[in-house]
């Protein structure tokens, strides 16, 4: 299945957002996930099935400033 992750087209194996994160070795606590411009709750990740052409944004924390 072809989706866009952070602006780049990607072929993904997983069915759900949580599976895609797992395949990328990303802990759900490390990112905020947006699907087609809508922020997903953490408890929605396992139940959200991805469709062909979906746009996923994985927003990592950026804590620095000093």
């Amino acid at each position, binding site marked *: 299945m072809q989706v866009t992750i*952070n*602006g780049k087209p990607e072929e993904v194996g997983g069915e759900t957002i949580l599976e895609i994160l797992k395949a990328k070795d990303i*802990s759900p*606590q*490390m990112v*905020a996930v*947006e699907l087609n*411009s*809508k*922020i997903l*709750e*953490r408890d929605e990740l396992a139940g959200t099935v991805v469709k062909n052409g979906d746009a996923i*944004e994985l*927003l*990592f*924390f*950026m*804590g*620095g*400033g*000093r």
Partner: protein
Amino acid sequence: MAFIPDSEEQVTRYSRHILLPEVGGKGQKKIGQARVLIVGAGGLGSPAAFYLAAAGVGTIGLIDGDVVDLSNLQRQVIHQTADIGRPKVESARARILALNPNVAVETHYTRLTAENALDIIGRYDIVLDGVDNFPAKFLINDACFFAQKPLVHGGILRFDGRVFTILPGKSACYRCVFKQPPPPGLVASCQEAGVIGALAGIIGTIQATEVLKLILDRGRLLTDRLLDYDARLTRFREIKVSRNPKCPLCGDQPEITQLFEHEPEVCAVKTA
């Protein structure tokens, strides 16, 4: 007030602003009447303070409880080698006044806390986030929501930077996107991870530009979109976000009704 329109020195100093149709004498006067709080006189706060001072912002508040450390000088350009050991707010004040003596600088030599945040933030029109840790970033976001003050958020880590402008109650807040800080130790902040020094200049000056746009009420703000910058690829990317009805702070059923501080991160190396 940093701008007296009939002073020749002032008209000359700000001439490149006054020439802009978006600024003009009127806009420059607004800049001179503005009160901006910079939280953290470090990597982001340094360039932001320089450019806001040069622009003639009437009052710049600086809050930081740290002293200048040798390891700061790789990116915190408002401090100099001779300042090591000196409170950052003092060092920054001296540099601001040397650049533009018309600016009133208010220094707060302390950390922003749940106790002092509303009082300090309440005295300013706009807040610029230049802190280096997640608990402080969430505290600033929450305090600006309760005080209803526009906030220009900034973050840097390694080769990546982010800017995000928040109009509390009107546009998405930091918690609309990131509910709460990551568990301690899972995500590095630049305290322990390192950062390319010049990146602080890029992100801090974008923040300063957002502050000026807020003062002037001109242009399109970075609200409801995150601007992410990847210095490795020299690429900017914009990510649309929107107010989240489930936001624990500004959502429909807020759980956060007063200020608090998240647990501080446990750092292996403390170099900030």
